[in-house]
């Protein structure tokens, strides 16, 4: 079962800090919640890069470790 009951909450670790999410939240929804610019970041879920085309489809699960970081290009 992928979706959580709307009233259920789950615990995730977002950028190293514990976070409670209510109901079923996709990665895209989490980014909106956090007001993060989708064109300037990459996302790692449980130590794997999650490509952008998957963000709408992947749901946050209990105890997921989610890291969002800025793209950097300097050298």
């Amino acid at each position, binding site marked *: 079962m992928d979706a959580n009951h709307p009233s259920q909450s789950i615990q995730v670790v977002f950028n190293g800090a514990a976070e409670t999410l209510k109901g079923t939240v996709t990665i895209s929804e989490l980014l909106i919640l956090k007001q993060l610019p989708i064109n300037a970041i990459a996302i790692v879920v449980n130590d794997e890069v999650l490509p952008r085309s998957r963000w709408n489809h992947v749901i946050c699960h209990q105890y997921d470790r989610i890291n969002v970081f800025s793209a*950097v290009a300097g050298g």
Partner: protein
Amino acid sequence: MNTLSAKQYIQYSRTMLLNDIGEAGQLAIINSQVAIIGLGGLGQLVVQYLAAAGVKQFILLDHDVVALDNLPRQLLYNEADIGQYKVTAAKRTLRRLYSDIYFDAIPEMLTETSISELSDELSKDVLIFDCTDNFASRHVINQHCVTQGLTLISAAISAYHGQLFCIDFGAKITHEKQHGCYRCLYPLDIETNQTCSQQGVLGPAVGVMASMQALIGLQHICNTFTQYGMLLRFDALTLEWHQAKMNRDQQCTLCQQPQLQEYAHGC
């Protein structure tokens, strides 16, 4: 070159003492060809480490000139080099130290056109180091490496945030190895204003990323590298490293190699 000279045995003895490198590894280093694209903070250190390690054939590409505010982190250059092309200054200084090294110093801007004109030189068996400072160049280099099946060692840093990875686009791709490419990590519309010039950076933090690039390069050449497709992130403030497995974006239109399509049909 098939054998080392007596002087080289002494010169590279500490490298060869590593059991998995030995004389064969040192000969591989000496016979390797590398291209360093971008001779700023990253590239200027990568070239020094590789030249010192025994690499004899370099392609250096950068259209930028040395500026005073480069000097705190670009230790290959000095005040007398200001205003000169970085590739020219790098070649001149390194030729003084290593007379037997061949440098092809190209003071040109990297574009899709310029890289395709260089495709004879930037071809198989040339290890590519992406040391540039902008997304446009990084995408051009990635595209070239994917289509030509080259190995790419890419590093970047802005402020306290460094990122690094190595992908061998010539390797046979298996289900576990679908690392994708730079475009899978950062699609073409990626944007940020975080370049060194706008964000600021500490010299040694750039040096950490460049040293890692050189380390990975030598390991790749010596066949001791195993972490292909692993994104390494360095926080230069907390000194923490983070690793993440890179994954192909199924919607990436660039890295659809034949092997991948075969794999997709096979399922």
